């Protein structure tokens, strides 16, 4: 761990961070929010600097390569963390939701950096596009109309954080522990195997191979790529050979690595799709059930006729009475 980040910096980060959040969280009439932001920024900046500084040294010591994660990472990380800080420190829920969209988009950037394009875009569509919009709707639905005379004044619920110091300290204690746990063992982790062959999954996708070969004219009408269930070497990704069968004659031929088309690569989507449907079919089933249940649950909850509580009824009746009175007064005056 010491190779990546000094524990002292880590602990300092925790202290600064907790102090920053304690100050930055909303409370009535607080003037210290900017100071909290500054503290938080310095804390995260300190860690970032430490990472950048240590990254090259770390690379020298380890045969498995090294170096830092690159500039884009820092950009996206800064946006994501900054936005998420604002999610929780902004007193107005609508802004929180918007900042959350920002966090999502920045995270998606990191996903792309990590080669998970599909998930990244799915996240943008589902999260930023669908879920967060729902949130916004609900926020609008469920925000009490500010009562007269107090417009612009935030509701107590949003304006005041609940025990910010305890929460921040507790959070950063956990942060410290998680970091120690995660980074403590980082020296001993070994990245994925060197014999990793990303195109190996193509052997399971003969249809795609057929299509690509056909587009490149490497395959005739009556030919097809040999299926795995037919036995024999079908597609050898490491030797870059493809076995093709003539369906009419029953003969086979092999396309060598010279003729391997450039377009024939297994993308993220291919690999993810194979993994999802082949290795984790149960996951999909469960996810389906969960979503179905959620839909049913939401429907049931939404159908429920809400009985207002007595006190609230009285209050609403009073308010309603006032309004009608106001409306009636002019007409009464007219009469």
């Amino acid at each position, binding site marked *: 761990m010491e190779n990546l980040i000094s524990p002292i910096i880590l602990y300092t980060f925790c202290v600064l961070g907790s102090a920053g959040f304690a100050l930055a969280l909303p409370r009535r009439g607080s003037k210290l929010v900017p100071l909290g932001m500054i503290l938080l920024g310095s804390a995260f900046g300190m860690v970032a600097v430490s990472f950048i500084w240590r990254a090259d040294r770390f690379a020298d010591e380890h045969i498995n390569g090294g170096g830092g994660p690159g500039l884009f990472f820092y950009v996206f990380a800064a946006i994501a963390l900054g936005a998420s800080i604002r999610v929780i420190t902004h007193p107005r829920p609508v802004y929180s939701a918007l900042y959350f969209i920002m966090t999502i988009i920045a995270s998606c950037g990191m996903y792309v950096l990590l080669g998970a394009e599909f998930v990244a875009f799915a996240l943008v569509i589902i999260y930023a596009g669908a879920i967060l919009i729902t949130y916004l709707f609900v926020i609008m639905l469920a925000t009490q109309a500010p009562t007269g005379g107090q417009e612009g004044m935030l509701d107590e619920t949003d304006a005041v954080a*609940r*025990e910010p110091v305890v929460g921040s300290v*507790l959070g950063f*204690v956990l942060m410290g522990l998680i970091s120690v*746990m995660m980074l403590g063992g980082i020296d001993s982790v070994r990245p994925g195997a060197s014999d990793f062959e990303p195109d190996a999954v193509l052997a399971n996708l003969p249809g795609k191979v057929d299509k690509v070969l056909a587009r490149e004219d490497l395959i005739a009408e009556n030919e097809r790529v040999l299926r795995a269930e037919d036995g024999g070497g079908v597609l050898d990704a490491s030797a870059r050979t493809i076995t093709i069968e003539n369906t009419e004659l029953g003969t086979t031929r092999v396309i060598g690595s010279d003729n391997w088309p450039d377009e024939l690569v297994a993308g993220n989507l291919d690999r993810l799709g194979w993994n999802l449907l082949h290795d984790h079919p149960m996951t999909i089933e469960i996810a389906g059930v969960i979503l179905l249940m959620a839909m049913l649950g939401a429907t049931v909850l939404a159908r429920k006729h809400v009985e207002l509580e007595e006190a609230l009824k009285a209050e609403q009746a009073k308010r309603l009475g006032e309004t009608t009175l106001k409306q009636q007064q002019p007409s009464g005056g007219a009469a």
Partner: protein
Amino acid sequence: MIAQTLSGTFLQPTLAMAPDVPAGIGTGPKWVLLIPFLAALAACLNGVYAAMGNKTRLPAWTTVALLAVSFFATLAMAMGFDGNAYTVKAFDWIQVHGESASFIANFSFYVDTLTIYWMLFVTGLATLIALYASEYMNHDLGVSYCRFFAAFGLFVFSMACLVMGDNLVMLYLGWEGVGLCSYLLIGYFYKKPEAVAAAKKAFIVNRVGDLGLALGLYLAYVHFGTVEYSVLFSDEKLLAYVEAAKVGAFDQIPAMAQWIALLLMVGAFGKSAQFPLYVWLPDAMEGPTPVSALIHAATMVTAGVYLIARFYPVFLISEHALPIVAWIGTITAFLAATIGMAQFDIKRIMAYSTVSQLGYMFAGLGVLTPTGGAYHVLTHAFFKALLFLCCGAVMHGFAGQLDLRKLSGIRRVPGWGIVSLGMLVGCLNLAGVPFTAGYFSKDTILAEAFVTPGASMIGWILLLTAGMTAYYTFRVFFRVFVGPTHYEAGDDHHDHDDDHAHGEEHHHDAGEHGDHHADGFHPHAPGWAINTVLAVLTVASLAATGLYFVGGSKDLGYKTKHYADTMVSASTASYHSPYSAHAFHDDHHGDDDHSGDHADDAHKALAGVGPRGAIDEPLMLFGKDPHKVMYYVSGIVGAIGIALAWVFHYAGRKTAGECRMDGVARLFGPIPRWAENKWYVDELYDAIIRIPLRVASHLMHWFDKLVVDGLVNLAGMMPRVFGWFVRPSQSGVLQGYAAGMVGGVAILLVVIVLAVRLGGGS
């Protein structure tokens, strides 16, 4: 499976079951099973009648008919008996076949002479008394009538199982069965609290005895490995013990074997109403009189005698059992006689005389004459049944009146001749007037008591008791059946409350009514059924005398004197007192020199502990053969008793309620009242057993509620108390819970980090 077992029970031929029957004891004809099962059939049929709502006398006729067949079957069994005991198996009952030990108790019957002897009078009397009851219970036609005869049949069945059972468990079955029937029949008038209480008392006191019997059973099984008579009585171990006992070598007999008899004895005391378990029998007179006659006089109460007679070898091997039996019998006989002298309820007097006579039988068994005991059982069964039935007839005719102060001179009331005659014969027998059956059977016991070394004290007490018996017996006769005619009706036919015999105000009542008959009450004389039965029994009681002179036999290798002697001697109860044989036959004087050198003095304290093979002193009473002497002595004592009764209760008596005895009784101060109140034994039991137990029960109940359950509730409170402490943490604020969770995770992570650090360091 059921089909298999059933076929194994009923359908398989007898021979196939041979492995269950030990060698040496054959199996008998299956029709012997009719004897008990016909009675059971009678019970079942009566149950069916009750369910059908029969309101005729059909139950009575059914019962009488079936019991008569049963009696004739018994007769046939007696006729066909060739001298060898046999068993008859009905079906497998309780069998456990362990790897090392088996427990076998079949529903099978054992027939030897003792069985036959007992069954003859049980079935015979049962038939007669059922006939009697058919008239006696007339007022209750309907379900109750059926109920009575169902219980009656069940009783005979149980009694047959008791007497004929081939094993101790069968005996126990019969033992409890007769107890149950006794319970049901005593409580026949179930609306009367006294009857219910008496029934309950009878069953519970009997159960105390049954516990002894049960434990004896277990011990017998554990020690001898069997409970079947056919195996037990031919067990080599037992035979060896008997031989050892005969020479007084009790130290060679394991204590456990000696305990069997002591435990069985407790059972016998309970069932035969011996001191200190006799208290239930007088109360049992709450039941209908036929029941009192059959169950509580003639048959069931002799079960204890049967038990001891049947297990005589087992009793012989116990150093203390027979002496205790003798003494308890003597004490009971005397005590019951004193109480009997002071009672006014004639049925109760008969009850106490039963207890007293049972005491005689036990004393007889104890002084080594099972023959005497058994013979007295037989004679007593006849004359006591007769006496009870006469009392019952009186009670039936006089609307439940039983107080001898309110009845007088019944003899002269039209239609009461047979009753009076029967009563006279019964009283003569009970009083032991010379040349009656009771006289001979009682003499046998008395004589044995005198000849048995160390038991002469018993003899004297019994002799005194004989005089007292004569007195109180004829007290009843002279007050009720002769003298000036006077009677008052009882208050209710059903409700013959014995309290009326006691209270002072009733004395007053009697005086008020004077000499005239109350309210134009007309007693109704007994009908043909009652009279027939009484006549038959009267004849039988007289005829029983004859049994003293017939039936002797020499088949057994020695001479038996009379029928009862033969029957007993040929059975497991076979034991001939060396003293008695000696005196009677007068031909072995040489043995007098036989010094009892292997008998230490302590053993001579009483016959039972004496060396039974040795004769230590001349068996003479006043220099004569004790049996012959006793003829005179007991005759004289009886005569004195009768004479006293004559003087105090007959001579010069003008009214029913007053006699000379009243004046005499006053001389004794409170003693007669104490005797009338049974020496307060019931109250004593209440004070030393029932009340402490009840207090203990209440204490335990509270202990259970407060301590045992209290501890449980305390344990149940613990979570609540704990909850009270931690409840504040459940504030309902969502973030509070989340904070708790985070804190928990943090602590967990700290632990893991530390563990990794420490683990990595090592």
